[in-house]
Each structure stands twice: as C-alpha cells, then as structure tokens.
C-alpha cells in the first residue's frame, strides 16, 4: 500500500485532481481555498500541465469551459462568493453538456460574509448553480481521505454523464490535515470523448460546443434528454453512509464537516445507552432519498445538523415524505456546532 502522508484538505484535493488526470486548472485566490490554487501553481508545471491564475472567477470558469470543450479534464476552485461568480459558467457548461469539476470550499455568507467554515451554499450547489433547468453532480466529502477519493469519482461521473460536477467542501475540511493515501497516477484510463472540439484534420464533421438554441422545440428536446439522464443518475448514483442506524430510534442526518460533529455526538449518545445513528449523504445531488426513506420506516425521528440556517433539511423532509418528524439544528456565519450542542438536541428530541 502507498505511504500515508499528512495533507491539508485543500492540497489533497489538488493532488487528487492531478492524479485523476486533470492537467488544466484555472483559479483565482480566495480564503479558505487558496492553498488549493497555490499547490496547483507549484505542481502543474512538474506534470506538464496548465496552471493559470485568471483575472477573475468568471474568467477562470470560462477557461474551464474552453478546456472541457477540447475534451480534457479541467477544474476550478473557489469559495462561496467566488462560486456565485462562477454560476454563469456552470450554467453554460451544463447547457453545453460539458464535464468539469468545480470545487467550493464554503465560507460564511451571504455577500462577502466571513472566511470561517459554512455549509450555507447547499441550495446553490444542489438547486440553483446558475440559471436554467439543470443539475450538477454534488459530492460532499467529510474527511481529507474522502476529498481525495471523491475528486476522482467526480471526474469519472462527470465524464460518464457529460455534465459538471462539484465538490462541496468547507473551510474546516479545506484547512485541516489528516493522514491520506494518494492513488497511483493513471490507475484509470481516460474516457473517450468523441464529441470534443479538439481539432480533427478533416477526418469527421465538426463538433460544435454550444448552449444557444433559438428554436424552442430544439431546446426543449435537449433539456428533456438531459433530464432523462438525470433520472438515470438519481436511480443509480445516490450515495450515503449509514452509521449505527440499524436499531436507532433517532437518526441524525448531516454531511461534510457537520457530519463529523454529528458523529461525535452520536458516539456520546451511544455511550449513554441512547439509540442514535447517523446518515451521512455523500452525494447531495443526487440526494440519497432511498437510504433516508428506508430509514424512516424504522426510525422515530430525524434531526438534520448543518452549518447553515437549514437547507438540506428540506430534502430530508421530502425524502421521508413527512412520514416522521424531521427537525433541524444548525449554526451559521462561520460557527462550527459543538458535539455537546448536538447531543443537547438529541436528548431533547428523545425525551419529547
């Protein structure tokens, strides 16, 4: 097995992307993801790749659109306010059926907000990444190792379905160091991209990458075809981790950094003999509805814990079809909830 090394989440995301065959990075600095771009600046020249610090987030995301059009693995990264700026490019990539990776190391909002960890961009990532009818794949790692693993999965899934993917991390995961095992380079073969606009020396008809369709029927057909793919993704790509849910009376639902806090609270509750478990969505779109719905059949209550005012809680309620009460606890503005606070909520709900 490869050596375990200690890495910051931001750096691990960058190295994992390079090892997944991404040799084109376009970024713009913003706390708390700057180490990712800095790492790319150092590493890309060593692998013969392109690192480019653009003049703005808009420029960076549109460079990703260009590189993805040529069929290469490309990515950009930012934090919340910067990802809002990238929304236009994300929508254009979705409308052009382009695979690419966008990383959001979330910080507090709205506006410039703060620079401390947050999960307040859940709605943006899963429902409103830009204008128009579209989805992006959203992956939510909760450890540095998972940041590494999901980068590769995100690129693969994006290529498979020809659509943008996002890693939704946060300042805590980006800044923290944990041991990781990095994959070997080139373990996976790159996907064939016969649609790429990459020059063909007159061997075929041109490929056109475009998101403008002035005939409504044509545009509707394309959107409908895309939604057929989304159905397949919703049926086959949902991912969640279940922890101590089998006999649980109450299940905490949390992703990313707050899932770590929730896990600590669940462990404390178990030490006290309370039947509490955790469901941790790993894909936020597609949302792991099936896992939640199945759990709702044997669980009395659910509690979602988020670093926001309550965004994923809506999806949890929809997934369980209001069969059981779903409550919310969160901190926002850059505050990380403590396990003790979550345990307090668990205790309250179990006694009610």
């Amino acid at each position, binding site marked *: 097995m490869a050596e*375990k090394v*200690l890495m910051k989440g931001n750096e691990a995301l960058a190295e994992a992307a390079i090892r997944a065959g991404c040799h084109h990075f376009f970024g713009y600095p913003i*706390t*708390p993801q700057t180490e990712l771009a800095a790492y790319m600046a150092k590493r890309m020249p060593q692998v013969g790749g392109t690192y480019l610090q653009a003049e703005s987030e808009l420029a960076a995301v549109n460079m990703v659109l260009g590189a993805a059009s040529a069929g290469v693995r490309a990515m950009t990264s930012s934090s919340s306010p910067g990802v809002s700026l990238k929304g236009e490019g994300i929508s254009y990539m979705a409308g052009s059926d382009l695979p690419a990776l966008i990383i959001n190391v979330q910080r507090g909002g709205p506006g410039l907000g703060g*620079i*401390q960890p947050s999960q307040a961009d859940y709605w943006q990532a899963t429902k409103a990444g830009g204008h128009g009818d579209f989805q992006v794949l959203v992956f939510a790692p909760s450890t540095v190792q998972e940041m590494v693993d999901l980068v590769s999965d995100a690129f693969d899934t994006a290529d498979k379905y020809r659509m943008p993917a996002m890693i939704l991390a946060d*300042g*805590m995961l980006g*800044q*923290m*160091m*944990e*041991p990781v095992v990095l994959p070997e380079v080139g373990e996976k073969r790159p996907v064939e991209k016969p649609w790429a606009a990459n020059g063909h020396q007159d061997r075929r008809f041109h490929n056109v990458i475009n998101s403008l369709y002035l005939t409504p029927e044509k545009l509707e057909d394309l959107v409908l075809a895309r939604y057929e793919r989304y159905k397949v993704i919703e049926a086959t790509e949902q991912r969640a981790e279940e922890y101590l849910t089998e006999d649980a009376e109450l299940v905490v639902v949390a992703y990313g950094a707050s899932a*770590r*806090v929730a*896990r*600590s*609270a669940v*462990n404390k509750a178990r030490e006290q003999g309370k039947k509490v478990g955790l469901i941790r969505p790993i894909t936020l779109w597609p949302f792991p509805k099936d896992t939640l719905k199945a759990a709702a059949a044997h669980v009395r209550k659910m509690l979602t814990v988020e670093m926001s005012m309550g965004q994923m809680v809506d999806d949890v309620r929809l997934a369980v079809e209001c069969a059981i009460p779903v409550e919310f606890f969160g901190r926002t503005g850059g505050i*990380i909830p*403590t*396990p*003790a606070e979550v345990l307090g909520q668990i205790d309250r709900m179990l006694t009610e």
Partner: protein
Amino acid sequence: MKDLNIVFAGFGGQGVLFAGKVTAYAGLLAGKELSWLPSYGPEMRGGTANCSVCISDEPIGSPLVTAPNVLVAMNLPSLDKFISAVEPGGLVLIDSTLIDKQVDRTDLSVFELPATALAEEQGLRGLSNMILVGKLFQQACIGSAPTAFCTEEILDQAMQKCIPARRAAMLDLNRKAVSLGAHL
C-alpha cells in the same frame, strides 16, 4: 490510549502550527487516527493563532477541540482564551517568559516553562515552541501517561518529516530544543 485533544495557541510566528504539525505527524507515524486544524483568520496576524490536534485510536469526529485535555499556551491572550475550556485534570504548558500570570484553576496540572528565555540563552531563538513540545511529549505522549501514544524515536522521525530538506540544519536545533524541554 486515552484520546489526546490538544490546543496549541500563541502569537502568529511563534510556531504553534508547526508544533501541532510535529505532534500530528508523530500520531501518524505511531499508526493512530489524528487530525490537525489551524485557525486561519485574521487573528493569525498578531493575535492568537492556534491549532487543534486530536490523536486517538478511533476515527476523529469533530477536529475542532472545544474542551482540550492539553493546552500549550505561548502568550497571555491564548491562556485567557482557552484556560477555562480545559478539561478538569488537564495538562497546561505555559511559556512563563511571556505569560506573567498564575493559573487560578486548581484542578489542572500546570507547568510554567521560561521557554522563550531558555531558547535565547541556548542559541535556539525561535524554538520556544519545540521546548514546549519536548515537555508535552515527556508528560503526555511518551511513557506511562494514559494519553501516551508514541516513543522518542517516533518524535524524532516526526521532526524529520516536518523539517524540509532545504532546512536540514534546523533539525539538530529542533532536537536540542525538544531535549531541553523534556528535561525541564
């Protein structure tokens, strides 16, 4: 081992993040679960830079240490900020050159080390952090402490991992600082 939840805190530039990184690497080399989480806000420019380090046999939940069982405090704002959060029975290491204040809690094990003054005297300027790391490992990480998880050899390997090759000359100075702290 009993879980170690450490807060290293001081001014930006005193090496609190590095001290935490050496400790975290020792955890990795000892085959433990661990996390290292720094503060990254504007307080790093002169206020209280700090980092949380968790070392355990079990996967780490929240990496943000809110109730440390070890506090390494390198300036007064850090001591004031974290002292009330330390778990009863916890270990507190203080750089007494820079902190002219007694800890008023009686339920803690407190060591006051004149780390900055000693570093100056011994030609180890800038390594007061590693003097405190030496004491930390001697008290909590090596030997018979319930939180012990590694050996002197592992600590030495951790320093080798954390000091880049281009600064190899620093390794012996770090070793000297650690040894000085361990024997205080």
